[in-house]
């Protein structure tokens, strides 16, 4: 019997009253037909809200199908007509204690979906019963309902003790109930931003036990939850990985990838290298399976994740190159990703195969893809020295095919190859020059012109070649123009006799006849250089250029580590941290701040900026007014003021000093809350120890903390403070991590963090100074080789003069106390260069300090360039 007929009703005038009549028909089957018609009308967007009471009338039935249809209608309309939804409450409550568990579950489920505050009030009692229902189907439904309720009214869930009931469900005998409880708790954690589910041994065992038995979706929830925990204990990590590993063989790809995520996040804590190796070996084949047997959408997600995994642990798929070979009918998005991974996996031993595949790829029809394939060949040439010859040969073959975009792309990559291997492949220049007049893309043209200029002395007709471009100089894109100016100047410096006119002409055009400021600037610089000191011009223009290198590692290490924790999630597909592409649901949400709810500002803090990654908690423009300076310590506070400079001047400073606190928020400004704070390093992590004293009349609670963006990227972890009764004091310690999204320019000194602390009476602002010697991680030591290779890969961009107290030895001791680690020393008399490493969070900072032969200098390098200014500031203080 087809349901399509219900759509055909048309919108005749009497339709509604006809339906109304049918909804009250004596016979149940007629009523059911009528409700179906109403829902059909609703589906196509007709307004059937006036039938609410009539449809609701049908809810009193033992026919489950009819009941479901009525519930469906009610969910859709309750929001529009909350007054009428109340009418359904009685029935919901009755159904929630029906004999049939399906009906009980249906009622509780539907009530949770009706987002009307007044209905919510009536939900509590039935929900409590259903959470303890004897039927697991009802319990698993009720567990999810708690999450729905939390979204409507967090306060209700907390005050009614539903969280505790949910936690009790973790011990349920039915694994699917456990899984749904985990799913609900995770959702609540997401909404509230706090940790509810703690990794205790018993919780862990419950989750792992349920993992084997629950549904596939439940497995995903449990695995995701497991991946959020961490343990430093190698044995624990190993046993968790072992018990999760069988999930790698699940038919559901979501389960497989979630298991990979758990193993990747615990694997680093496993000390036994054999166990680590074993796990890597186990992860390889399932990842390959995702690529060979699954739908293209799944392949794509898998490939994006494999991209991260290969960067983090190349060994897992090092020998699976063939899987990434491109298939003729792969969708283009899959082909592109495969190409990327092939470049990463390319090595000397497999380069023949890989090049062959790239060559095939370059003869496909999709232009974008072909270009990427050609570019891939160039990247392999630069990455693998020994393969460069072969790569160049393949590129030449491709150029011979005379397909315009292939030729142009080849020339672009050959330019890069010349920059990596200067003076090795001039023999091919002749072939390239033959294609000069077919080039019509700016980048290809510019590349070719660069090659001609760079090798002008070996190209007999270089002047004629370049001259041919000059006639249309003004029609060229600025990229080509800039390259032309440089190339002609190079040519002139190499062959001054016969090119004087040409250089004159091109500089004239660049300086007089253009309004492009970049071009004009470059023209003038060359002009002045040439006219004042041709020798100097030679040194500048023809000077030796640094070699380029291909880093297949595209994501810097700190970011990679963060992304690896997000494996299987959307972040792993975008290769961006979640905060940068989805609004985090209700960061720190509070039911009392209902006003903000209607708009986007679900945070309690004023003027949340949508622009940045992490919400920027302050209005930066008005920061001067809104943030009062740290006030002087109050006399009666049990704190000492620490003299930071004195403290630093003793080189033997350890890190286990007793923490001295300073009052950062006096009670007058804190509405009765006094806060004292002091920083310390413990267990390899920076902590902010807080003493909160309640001098107000009422208990203080609901504490939450946020930091403003700051130069070291300090981020607070979860603040756990119990309610503070009047005239009592609570001590707490807040672990501080470093998070790339928290980077921001310095407001004052780099080591000052502006903090917002919220409690039930308001939001209060203060700032805390973290002594520079506490900023760097204990894990800042790196091997000499790693250090050197990274050091060499970066230019000397941050060289500053500094005042240094003491000689290189005493400085070493002093910096060691601040977790800056000595790496190596180099003496070039009379100067001495000492190298140090340090870590801010995961980010490696490197510095060279020079002694002797004039004022001391520091030369700072880091892949996390945004940290350098703050790091330099730290060094000024620490070296003094």
């Amino acid at each position, binding site marked *: 019997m087809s349901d*399509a007929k219900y759509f055909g009703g048309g919108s005749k005038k009497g339709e509604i009253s006809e339906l109304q009549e049918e909804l009250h028909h004596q016979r149940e089957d007629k009523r059911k037909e009528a409700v179906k018609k109403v829902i059909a009308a609703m589906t196509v967007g007709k307004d059937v809200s006036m039938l609410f009471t009539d449809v609701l009338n049908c809810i009193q039935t033992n026919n489950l199908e009819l009941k479901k249809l009525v519930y469906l209608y009610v969910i859709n309309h309750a929001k529009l007509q909350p007054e009428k939804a109340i009418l359904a409450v009685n029935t919901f409550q009755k159904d929630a204690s029906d004999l049939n568990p399906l009906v009980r579950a249906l009622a509780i489920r539907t009530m949770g979906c009706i987002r009307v505050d007044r209905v919510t009030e009536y939900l509590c009692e039935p929900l409590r019963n259903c959470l303890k229902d004897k039927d697991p189907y009802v319990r698993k439904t009720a567990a999810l309902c708690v999450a729905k309720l939390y979204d409507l009214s967090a306060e209700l869930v907390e005050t009614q003790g539903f969280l505790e009931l949910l936690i009790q469900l973790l011990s349920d005998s039915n694994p699917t109930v456990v899984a749904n409880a985990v799913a609900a708790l995770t959702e609540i954690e997401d909404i509230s931003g706090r940790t509810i589910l703690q990794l205790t041994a018993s919780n862990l065992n419950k989750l792992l036990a349920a993992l084997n038995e629950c*549904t596939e979706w439940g497995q995903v929830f449990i695995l995701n939850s497991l991946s959020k925990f961490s343990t430093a204990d190698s044995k624990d990590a190993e046993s968790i990985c072992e018990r999760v590993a069988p999930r790698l063989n699940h038919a559901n790809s979501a389960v497989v990838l979630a298991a990979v995520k758990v193993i990747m996040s615990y694997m680093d804590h496993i000390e036994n290298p054999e166990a680590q190796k074993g796990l890597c070996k186990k992860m390889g084949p399932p990842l390959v399976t995702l690529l060979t047997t699954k739908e293209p959408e799944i392949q794509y997600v898998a490939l994006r994740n494999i991209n991260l995994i290969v960067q983090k642990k190349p060994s897992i798929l090092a020998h699976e190159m*063939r899987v990434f070979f491109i298939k003729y009918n792969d969708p283009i998005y899959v082909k592109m990703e495969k190409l990327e991974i092939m470049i990463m996996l390319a090595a000397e031993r497999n380069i023949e195969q890989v090049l062959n595949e790239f060559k095939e790829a370059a003869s496909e029809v999709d232009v974008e893809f072909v270009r990427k394939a050609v570019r891939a060949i160039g990247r392999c040439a630069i990455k693998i020295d020994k393969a460069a010859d072969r790569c160049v040969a393949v590129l030449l073959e491709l150029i011979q095919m005379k397909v315009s975009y292939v030729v142009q792309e080849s020339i672009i990559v050959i330019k890069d190859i010349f920059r990596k291997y200067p003076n090795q492949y001039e023999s091919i220049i002749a072939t390239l020059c033959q294609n000069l007049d077919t080039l019509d893309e700016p980048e290809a043209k510019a590349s070719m012109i660069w090659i001609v200029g760079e090798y002008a002395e070996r190209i007999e007709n270089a002047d004629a070649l370049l001259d041919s471009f000059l006639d249309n100089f003004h029609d060229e894109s600025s990229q080509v123009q800039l390259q032309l100016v440089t190339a002609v100047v190079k040519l002139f410096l190499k062959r001054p006799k016969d090119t004087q006119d040409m250089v004159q002409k091109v500089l004239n055009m660049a300086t007089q006849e253009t309004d492009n400021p970049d071009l004009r600037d470059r023209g003038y610089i060359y002009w002045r250089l040439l006219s004042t000191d041709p020798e100097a011009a030679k040194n500048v223009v023809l000077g030796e250029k640094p070699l380029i290198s291909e880093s297949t590692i595209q994501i810097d290490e700190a970011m990679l580590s963060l992304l690896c924790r997000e494996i299987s999630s*959307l*972040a792993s597909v975008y290769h961006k941290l979640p905060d940068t*592409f989805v609004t985090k649901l209700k960061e720190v949400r509070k039911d009392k701040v209902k006003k903000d709810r209607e708009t986007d500002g679900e945070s309690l803090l004023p003027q949340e900026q949508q622009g940045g990654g992490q919400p920027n908690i302050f209005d930066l423009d008005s920061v001067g007014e809104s943030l009062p300076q740290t006030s002087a310590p109050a006399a009666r506070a049990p704190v000492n003021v620490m003299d930071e400079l004195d403290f630093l001047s003793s080189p033997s400073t350890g890190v286990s000093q007793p923490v001295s606190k300073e009052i950062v928020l006096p009670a007058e400004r804190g509405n009765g809350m006094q806060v004292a704070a002091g920083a310390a390093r413990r267990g390899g992590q920076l902590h902010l120890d807080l003493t909160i004293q309640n001098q107000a009349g009422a208990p203080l609670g609901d504490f939450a903390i946020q930091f403003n963006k700051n130069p070291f990227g300090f981020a607070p972890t979860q603040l756990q403070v119990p309610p503070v009764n009047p005239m009592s004091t609570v001590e707490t310690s807040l672990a501080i991590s470093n998070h790339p999204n928290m980077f921001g320019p310095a407001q004052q000194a780099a080591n000052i963090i502006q903090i917002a602390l919220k409690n039930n009476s308001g939001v209060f602002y203060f700032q805390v100074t973290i002594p520079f010697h506490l900023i760097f991680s204990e894990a800042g030591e790196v091997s000499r080789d790693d250090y050197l290779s990274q050091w060499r890969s970066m230019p000397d961009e941050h060289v500053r003069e500094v005042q240094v107290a003491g000689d290189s030895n005493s400085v070493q001791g002093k910096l060691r106390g601040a977790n800056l680690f000595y790496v190596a020393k180099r003496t070039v008399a009379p100067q001495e260069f000492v190298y140090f490493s340090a870590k801010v969070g995961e980010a490696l900072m490197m510095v060279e300090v020079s002694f002797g032969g004039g004022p001391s200098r520091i030369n700072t390098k880091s892949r996390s360039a945004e940290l350098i200014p703050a790091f330099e500031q730290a060094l000024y203080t620490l070296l003094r």
Partner: protein
Amino acid sequence: MNLTKYLAIHILREDLCYLAIVAKECSPLLVIEFLQRLHEVFGTYFGQSVTEASVRENFVIVYQLLDEMMDNGFPFTTEPNSLSEIIPPPNVFRAVVGGITGQSNMKADMNTGSMSMHPWRKAGVRHTTNEIYIDIIESIDSTVETNGMAAHTEVSGEVAVQCKLSGIPDLSLFFSNPHILDDVSFHPCVRYNRYEQSKVVSFIPPDGNFKLMNYRVKGQLQLPIYVKPQITFSTNGGRVNVMVGSKTTGGKVVEDIIITIPFPKFVTTATLSANYGTVQYDDITRIAKWTLSKIPKDKSPILEGNLSTTAAATMDSNPVVQAEFKIMQYASSGLKVDTLTLHNESYKPYKGVRFITKAGKLHFRS
């Protein structure tokens, strides 16, 4: 940077787009797998192909299924066996009876299956004849170079089961040579630990049709057929010559061979003929299809012909020739089933196992 409020994840199946909206960080694979499952469930409910018409036709069931399969964004009941207990699929018989007596489609009693320890199996299954059929279908993916060497070859297998067994049967499938399997992925019903220890696939099956496991086989394998395409272009047209023949198939016949040649855009007409089988050429898509029921013993099949091209022809165009075929009772991987045993029930079921090898993505470069 732009913060979006919602993200959309979609899959396209049989001209229907299944779209999911997400408002926060989630596991995209979970969403994709769920949408895929939705499509499969619709398939089992509305007959094999899901179309706009069939969704319209069954909108009440669609609503009921959506309602049951998902709760507030969480996948709920997705096992076809459990679903069919709560929401019986439409069929002609029920439609007739329902129309006369006004009986509901909905079962009013609680399904015990969905919350049992094996949620994939209905409770109280009764069959008059107990039988179980296992199809082991292997497909070969390979890309073959112009020189006849395979750039890569992969064999992936699927074990599809049609199970009509009463009660709660506990089955064990033994392979003679499980060591050849490189990777396996199992239906939730399979006890993985048992497999890990003794390589036995032990399970309590769902009732009806389901996919028991997928596997991949390691090592290089011989392709059962060869295709030698020679397609050359010169200034005044092109020549086509494609030869097909069989290689090692353990004495089994290669059937239903289809060779597909997609010609490049600059080909205007093609005159093709074959000494065996039938050739069809579509002028619009420029695709030639050569169909052979089998490979004859007495001669080697050859497709030949001429192409005319436009001026824009490039000499170095290499169409990729695709091949399809099927070999019954043959496993290209060499996988062998030893026995299938039944515990927990006293009846003697009828058991059938058959192998099929077919071409997956089989491409020959010319």
